[in-house]
């Protein structure tokens, strides 16, 4: 297929937090995981969905099929900003690694235009998918959701073993990887998980870039409510506050670690 398509549920231009510089983030629909805290609950299913705002009754179709060329037409609009800021394209989801053919074609097309390509992944995809896209990806933004396999499976349906094996293979093959660790209150904000993150930061080499600690923000719940999607989030509190930041920083500083960032600052 020369111009494959995928179900895209959003394209966020001028995205400042999905990799280096100023970027355009393309969100592909569908994810094999089922994290109950998901901040994009509308992205889980692989098909377009129609949502109804419970307040106004307004309906909205989320997700539509787009070809690589159509996506690139939008991505290319901010070329000047990428060039100035060393930014580029980030492919996100859902889980983009479950759309390997589309991702490969999109990433290849971007690389041909000289655009830096990053991909946001949970790592929950068969290894051959990674092999397929790898030549066209400059940076993997690779989740580290939990250090505890059973808990990960219970909360997300994810397979820690597969995820970590994929990651290690990427690193072994010299792929640039930044680990992204979302800290969720009551789930993985424990000393045990934070210390595991520290250990991970020392283990990864040689192309490991950094660990970004991301703090849970209660965005998904409000989003689910507005879209009329049943929410699985049970009133988790936001972690983006001085007290929790201080606590998390303190724990991390108690263990040997390397290149761990929290809110853009090196811990």
């Amino acid at each position: 297929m020369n111009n494959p398509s995928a179900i895209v549920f959003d394209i966020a231009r001028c995205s400042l937090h999905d990799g280096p510089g100023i970027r355009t983030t393309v969100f592909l629909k569908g994810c094999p995981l089922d994290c109950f805290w998901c901040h994009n609950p509308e992205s889980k299913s692989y098909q377009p969905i129609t949502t109804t705002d419970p307040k106004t009754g307004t309906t909205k179709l989320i997700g539509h099929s787009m070809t690589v060329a159509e996506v690139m037409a939008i991505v290319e609009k901010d070329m000047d900003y990428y060039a100035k800021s060393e930014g580029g394209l980030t492919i996100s989801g859902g889980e983009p690694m479950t759309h390997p053919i589309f991702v490969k074609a999109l990433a290849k097309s971007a690389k041909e235009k000289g655009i830096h390509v990053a991909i946001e992944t949970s790592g929950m995809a068969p290894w051959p998918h990674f092999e397929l896209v790898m030549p066209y990806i400059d940076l993997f933004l690779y989740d580290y959701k939990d250090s505890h396999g059973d808990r990960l499976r219970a909360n997300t349906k994810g397979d820690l073993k597969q995820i970590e094996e994929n990651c290690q293979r990427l690193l072994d093959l010299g792929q640039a990887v930044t680990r992204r660790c979302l800290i969720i209150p009551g789930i993985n904000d424990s000393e045990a998980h934070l210390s595991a993150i520290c250990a991970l930061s020392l283990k990864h080499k040689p192309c490991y870039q950094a660990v970004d600690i991301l703090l849970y923000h209660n965005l998904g719940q409000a989003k689910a409510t507005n879209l009329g999607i049943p929410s699985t989030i049970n009133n988790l509190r936001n972690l983006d506050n001085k007290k929790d930041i201080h606590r998390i920083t303190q724990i991390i500083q108690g263990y040997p670690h390397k290149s761990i960032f929290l809110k853009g600052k090196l811990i």
Partner: protein
Amino acid sequence: MHLEKRIEIMEHFTTTYQTTPHLPKAVREITCMATQFPDVFVLPKEKDRFVGRFIMLPVGHGLEWAHLGGGDLIEDRKAQTTHKGASIPEMNSAGPSYYGHVDQLIAMTTTTDNKDLLKRLKALIDFWSVNDTHTQMAKQFSSEHDPSLFDADINNFLPPILILTRLSGIEMDYTLLLEKGLVGFKDHLSALMADHPNDYISAGAKGLALVEKSIHHYIEGLKLKKDTGNKPQLEPIVTSLLALLQGPPQTFHDALQLIFLYSQLAGVVNYGRMDDTLGSFLEKDLSTGLISEQDALEDIKSFWHLINESCNRGNGRVIIGGAGRKNPQAANLFVKLALQATIETKIPKPQLTLRMDPSTPESLYDLALDAIGQGCTFPMLYNDAVNVPALAKAMDVPLKDAQQYVPYGCGEYIINGRGTGSPNVCVNFTKILQLALNKGYDPFDGTYRGGEFDFLDPLSFTSYSHLERYYYSYLDYVLSTTVAYQHESYQYLASKSAFVLPGLLMHDTLKRGKPMLDGGIRYYSGVNEFYGFTNAIDSLQAIKEVVYDHKQFTLNELVQSLNTNFDEKGPLHPIQKALSNAQKFGNDLDDVDALAIRLHEHACEHIRTEGKKAGLHSFLAVNINNNANTRWGLKTGASYDGRVSGEHLAPGNNPHSGRDENGITAMLNSVSKFRPEIHAGYVQNLKCSPDLFNNERAKLKMIFSTYFDQQGGTQLMVNVMDQSTLLEAKKHPEKYPNLLVRCGGFSARFVELDEKTQTEIIERTCNA
């Protein structure tokens, strides 16, 4: 000053005006002014470091328009009694020409029971309600043009055109005044007259004598004040005033004092390139150790307060940075202190404006971003690399003069000390579309406001391009009326006034021996304020998609539905929904942006060409907006972009609030698509959360530099504020007395804005 004294001065002015029609107009003007000045000058307030405050009486002579200045929605009458808004006594934005602000006089009658005073006020009201220059001009114009199209009452936002007789935005070149001093300047005028006797120049000498008289007045007043109590800060003022009677200003303080005092008498409320004007004085005083940086900073802060308290909110520009400065190194000393003064004072004026070019170092740009990040709303950022060459073409001036461009007021460009560029007309593009599709009847209230035009039946359009051509033809008709007003109002002003004092510092009045509007000014230009421009773009695009591309509804169905405001009640009307779903300007979308570029080119070229024909050096579009977008929106019916009747129109050149959904880069790409070579100032607002602006500063800087360097962005004004803070401030104004916001063409304390303007600002897209 008590009421009787005020009335006495106004009566003296009025009788002088009545008895001097035989005098040459320049001489008559100074003679009339001398009945008020220097008596209306008041002594400095406690912390003032300069003199020049004066009481602006409702009757007098001036340049500007006292009612405007981003006027509040608060009723004018109320504004008189509460002293809110632009009509505050002691505010010097007076004019135009010989004015008698009847509403203010009426307000005065509510402050006394004294029958004699009331009778005297009534006599003033009777005279000025007929003889006020703007009133007379509007009357004359109405007799020659269809009056259904415009209104002389600028608070009546019903017709598609607003007319304002004024000579707004003059920014003087103070060089001659500072180099020669008052004494030398008078000698210079005498020498000119020796060769060619000339009423205008002779009046100029009288005007300078009035400045000197004002200085004497202050010296006497300050001496008396000193006698009644020891006020040490008066000493430097007296020293400067005495020096100014002897010769040219020697110090930074002398120069600033002369500039402020002269500007008050001249009626000028925008100060131009102060860094260029004052840089060498500052550099000299700092290098000789006469003053410290802290002393200079305190002087500038005092100057800032005086500007803030002496002119209405749509004025008070001070320009720093940029190409074409005589001594950039010295000027940059002023730039740094000006930015610091803005950070430390946090007041709505001056409207500090940073022109960016290679002679303005990165460190000053960073300091500017710090000021913005702290919620100052200033400085506004202007891109010389684009603006200078563009303005050379737009205004048809040499590059050297284009380098002297300055934005004034709400963002109109003018050539500092070399050109006029008053916006004497405003047009509402959205309303013009509604009139075009309703055969001249305004769907807002059913009144005919179409002028003399052969309207077509909307049913007759066979294609979108047919409709667009029709809209353009009606637009041309309306815009041609604005060209006529611009020119005729200048001519009318010229028949009444010479504008002597401001004119002396404008090229080439002395060389030509003529007042500004009689052929003296180098560039006899004007501008037209566009409103509802974005809504017209979105409206045309929505009609194109809904009626012609997708055939969801007929044009007739749209017109009917809009005329009943989408039936108002109930859930979103299907027509409104269809219109809302169409492409919107501000998202970097090719179709709607192409339409926007077409409309921009058409309208700008039309007035530019017609303006030239009318004899103006240039007549250009500005898309600046104070809060007239909100005020005009209140009187504009539902529009074809899905906007409901009474909702604000989009501010400046921005997307309509909340409709830019593709992020900052897309918005900036859209707004920078308009060709800058055919307009004289389009302004862009960008609202950012403090979190974004301050924590992602490096990335934002890259966005800004891409916008300026690669996209050809001309201008940016950044509002850094929390959405939650705005909502809180609306609920609990008492807790946020100093929260500054950028409305569009002016900044203001949020809590002092009317509710509708507050809502418009809250609804703007906030990038977080």
